[in-house]
Every structure is written in C-alpha cells, then in structure tokens.
C-alpha cells in the first residue's frame, strides 16, 4: 500500500528529453494506467518509479519519503515485465521464490553447498515454500511449480511473473505492458484477471500500456502521456468524454475521433465546412478543430454534411461507415448500431451531429470551452439534422 507522488520529473537520455516534467499523484490502492503511443515516455516513467533508471531532475516520493537513491528492491515495488523476464534456468517454484530468498536469506545462506549448512536456512526455506505454494494456489499454477519457464505457454508465464510479483507483498505493483505478448483472446481474459487481482489485493497498481482499450477497461484512472508530457489524468469516462487536448481526444477511443476543420467567428459562433453550428465560445476569433466521436455521428438522408461511403467495417454487433467528404483530410467515421442498416460502398450519404457531441480545440490543440445558446432565442438555427 503506497501513495506515490511524482513531482516535476524530467529524464533525458544523451540530451534527448524523454520525460518533460511530469507531475502525478498516485493514490494509495489505486489502479492507474499510464497510457500513450509508443515512445511517449510511459515505460521510462515506470522505470524511474521502480528505480531502474535515475531521473535527471524532479522527485519520486513513496509514502511521503523521497525515493532518490533508494535501490529498486528497497523501494519494495514489484514489477511485471512485458517479456515476463522469468529466469529460464529456474523452475517456476524457484522463480517465484527468488525475491523471498533474496530478502530473507543472507548471502551466505544463499551460497551453494555452504548455504545448506547454515542453521537458519531450513526454517526460512520452509516458510518460503509455504508462501510460494499459497501464491501458486491463488494463481492456479500449482501443477506447474516444477516446470521450467520454457515449458510454459505465454499465459502461464504471465501468471508466474505475476506470482513472483505478489509473493513478496510489495507496496505497489508496476506493470510494463504485461499483456502485449499474448494473443488477443487471452489478453482480454487476463485483463479481467488483473482487474480482479487488484480488487483482491487492494494495493496500488501502476499499469503501463499503449493499448487505450486495456487502460479504459481495467483502471480506475488513466493518465494519458504524449511526447514525454502527461497531458491528462482522470477517470476513463471523463477522459473520453472531456479530453483537454486534441491529442488525447485522438488517442483515446477507437476508431479515432473525427476532426473537422473549423473556425471561430468574430461573434463567437463556431462554423465548419461552411455551416454555422449552434454553439458559442468565448475564445478569440481564429482557426479551430471541431471533433466528434464516431458514435455521435448520425447518418441521415438529409444531413448537414454529405459524402460518399468509401469503406465499411462490419463487426457483427456494430458497423463503422467511413465517409469520404470534401474538406476533411481523413474519411469521417460513423458508428451504426444496426449493421443491417449500413449504406453500400459508393453511396452518397448525409450525416450530422448534435452540438452537445462537439469537442472543439484551438490551433495549439487545447480544448475550447463551448456553450449551447438557449434554443428558445434562436429556434431556427439548428446545426443538426
């Protein structure tokens, strides 16, 4: 159990700045995901928290105490690696027992041959065996204890790696993309298991992933990192609904949010593709981006905008219609909840969206506050179909 505070953390490798001043407080017992595209510095941040990498400046505090100069094992954080990092020459039992042996046995007791003769060793080994077997039972890997990692499947190795992490009862768990080496089906299954594990252990979980779906489904809070900066942290739904930056809006959610070129008029109204939206903003006049999630795009024969269907993705339970239209760089994606109702490729369709669905961003990508003027005043100016 630990509260971890990260303050103004910077990290540079050979002059290249990977972390550009990250501030984050991770609460005790929280499941937080650090999510972002590859190369955004999320793994580096995790390694700095673990103590595997020293920071260039800034501070990591664990339970109020500065962790600077504290060795990784002394921080008492457990880490699960993407590649599992199991010791291939040790059996599953010994793999899980490593952290306990390192902690509880002296160097002399661990030594080969001589160690057996040390008086306290046998008793310590018995306790270690009980602990390992308890964890193995919890993770349902008891029948595998005698095997070597090479004889295990990806999912089993994953469990062993988790076992090695939980056996020492650390203050917090650090996961570095632990599911990316698993196949899609197992990944979804392990998501649920890790979330369940968190409910059981009630310990702080810090989970790094590039897969926003993983982050959204498992964690209580997600922290979106882009280009070495932490852009936004919050509950998954809040980040999804209320992104503070266009990069966050584009990263979170699949398919990607639709972005239309827009303009803020001098009277504070927003317009896109020649249509004035029923929205107002206090932001100054200029260019902007009008973003709408695919599920908020509504297809209609007489829409505000129109385009040609260029591609269809039918997922069975839902379908995505890609509409190529003049004025947008990428096709506009719309979700259709009933796949039997999708238009044919090549068909011309109209589409629109409600003003509530719009998230507007300025040229720097920052979110613009918008409001919807009361419809009573201007009943005829509907932006929507």
């Amino acid at each position, binding site marked *: 159990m630990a509260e971890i505070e990260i303050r103004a953390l910077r990290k540079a490798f050979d002059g290249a700045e990977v972390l550009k001043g990250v501030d984050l407080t991770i609460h005790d017992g929280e499941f937080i995901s650090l999510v972002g595209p590859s190369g955004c510095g999320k793994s580096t941040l995790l390694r700095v928290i673990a103590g595997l990498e020293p920071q260039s400046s800034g501070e990591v505090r664990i339970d109020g105490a500065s962790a600077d100069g504290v*060795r990784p094992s002394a921080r008492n954080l457990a880490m699960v690696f*993407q590649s599992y990092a199991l010791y291939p020459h040790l059996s599953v039992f010994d793999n899980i027992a490593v952290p306990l042996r*390192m902690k509880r046995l002296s160097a002399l007791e661990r030594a080969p041959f001589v160690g057996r003769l040390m008086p306290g060793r046998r008793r310590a080994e018995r306790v270690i065996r009980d602990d390992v077997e308890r964890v193995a039972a919890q993770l349902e890997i008891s029948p595998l204890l005698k095997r070597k990692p090479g004889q295990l499947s990806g999912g089993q190795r994953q469990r062993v790696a988790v076992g090695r992490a939980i056996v020492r009862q650390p203050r917090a768990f650090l996961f570095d993309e632990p599911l990316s080496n698993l196949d899609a089906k197992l990944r979804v299954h392990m998501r649920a298991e890790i979330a369940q594990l968190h409910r059981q252990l009630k310990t702080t979980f810090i989970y790094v992933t590039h897969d926003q779906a993983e982050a959204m489904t498992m964690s209580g809070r997600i922290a979106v990192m882009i280009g070495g900066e932490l852009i936004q942290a919050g509950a998954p739904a809040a980040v999804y609904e209320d992104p503070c930056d266009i990069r966050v809006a584009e990263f979170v959610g699949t398919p990607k949010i639709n972005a239309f070129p827009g303009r803020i008029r001098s009277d504070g109204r927003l317009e896109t593709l020649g249509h004035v939206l029923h929205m107002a903003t206090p932001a100054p006049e200029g260019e902007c981006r009008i973003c709408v999630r695919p599920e908020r795009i509504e297809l209609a024969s007489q829409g505000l905008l129109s385009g040609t269907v260029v591609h269809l993705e039918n997922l069975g339970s839902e379908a995505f219609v890609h509409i190529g239209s003049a004025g947008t760089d990428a096709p506009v994606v719309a979700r259709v909840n009933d796949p039997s109702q999708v238009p044919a490729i090549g068909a011309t369709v109209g589409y629109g969206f409600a003003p509530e669905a719009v998230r507007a961003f300025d040229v720097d990508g920052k979110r613009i506050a918008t409001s919807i003027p009361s419809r009573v005043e201007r009943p005829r100016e509907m932006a929507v179909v």
Partner: protein
Amino acid sequence: MAPRVPARVFASFRRTGRSQAAYALAAPAFVLMLLMLIGPLAGVIALSFTDYQLGAPAFSWIGLSNYREMFADRVFWISLKNTLTYVAIVVPGAVALGLGVALLIQSGAGLKSWYRTVYFLPVMATLIAMAIVWEFMLHPQFGLVNGLLRAAGLQGHSWLQDRGTALYSLCVIGIWQATGFNMVLFLAGLVSIPKHLYDAAEIDGAEGAWSRFRLVTWPMLGPVTLFVVAISAIRSFQVFDTVQVLTKGGPSKSSEVLIYTMYTEGFEFFRSGYGAAVTVVFLAFVLLLTLLKSALGNREVHYA
C-alpha cells in the same frame, strides 16, 4: 505419368524412387566425410597396427605391438601426464580469465573495442612467431620477465631450462593465447543475455554484482561456458607449437606432450606406425571430450 497405372505399382515405384533420391542427395556429403574424415581416421587406426616407417617400401601387420610398446614406454606416460597437467591448468585458467576479461570489458564504459582488440591479438598472431617473442621474454639473462623480477628485487629464473618450471611456463603462454579467444566467445554470450533479466534481478533484490552474476549471468552463460571449456580442452590437448619452438619437450622430457611425442616418433624417427598409435590415444581423449560436451549440452542449455 500414366493415370491408368494401378495405385499399388505406382506406390512401390514411388517408394524405391524416394530412397534412391535420398541416397543420391546424401551422397556428396557422405563422400566428402569419407574422404576427409572417416577415411584418414580409419587409415591412422590401421597404420597403428603396422610397423610402417615413413618412406619405407613395405610394411607388415604387427597387431597390438605398437600399443604394447607404447604402454610400456616411460616417455609415453610422462607425455600423457604432462598433457593432462597442461590441460588441467590451461583450461580453468583460460576460461576464468576469458570470462573475467569479458565481464570487465562488458561493464566498462569506454574503450571497449580497444580492449577487445588487445586481448584478441594473441589469437590472431601466429603462435610460432609469438613463441619466439616469449623465448626472448623468458630468457634467463636479458629477458623481460627476469629483468622485471630483478628490478623488483627478486631473483630471476631459467624458466624454460628448468625441469620444474618448463611445463608451467608453457601453461602460462597457453593461457595467454587462449584467453582472448574465450573472451570473444564470452562477450558474445554476455551480449545475448536479455537486459530485462537484470532489471528483474534488480527488482527482486539481487543488488550486488555477485548476486546478479549468480542469479543471471552465470546460468545464462551456461551453454557458452560449456562450449568454451570443450574448445579450450581440445585446443590444449593439441599443444605443440610452443613446445616445438621453446623446449623441444625438454629439459629431460619435463615438457613432453602427446602431439610432440607423436611428431618426434613419426617425423624424426620415421616410426609412422608407432606415431599413429599415439595419435589414436590422442583421438580417444578428444572423442571423450566431445561426447562429454554433447551429453552435458543437452542437459544444461536453457532457452528463454
């Protein structure tokens, strides 16, 4: 192929056809092995049962006489004992030093390639030429080694001329020569150890260099170590150049080794048959080492 041929005939045709093709495809490799490996080996073994002398027009089969003579010969036993002593000193020395140097180079920050080159030089240099350099270095009067000893206030020694030190001096040269080669193999092995295992070890509490070595480096180097030990052992069994150049097996047979015995018997006394018998003993040891390596290799190799 005619479609009306009964299936049975067709199948049998295919079967014989396949085995003929298999033999034909295996033939080049088999012929090469026969010519270059099995043939000469059989020749040497056959030769060891004859009294053939190099250049002689005729020879006769004398059965096990060569072996009887050899096992009764004091020089052969001295030679065998010296060879085993040499192997027993050079193998651990060269393996440990090679590993140590590799670990130091790997953990060092700069000048890696410079150190690699320096330690690899003895491997690339011709040992005969290097042996002459060593001869000068070990010279009792004006050699560098004795010079250094004298400068340190110690007494010099006739390293290669003393029965007590000749073989051990050769061992030192052997270690010097083999270390670089072993170092390169160990370096390759060290590079291939996944970095995340060290991270895991660090997280798990293996903080000192020694515990990391015990937990990760040494086990992960298992296959390389086995290979290095086997190669070093086989190469030290073959020690000849330094003996030939520096001591000629002397003084009074104190540095006589198997291959040198074989050489003198076969090419100085022209007793090819007897030389072949010595060679067979040598081959038996090499075969034993190879078998040992493959037996251990199957057990000790770990794959992630």
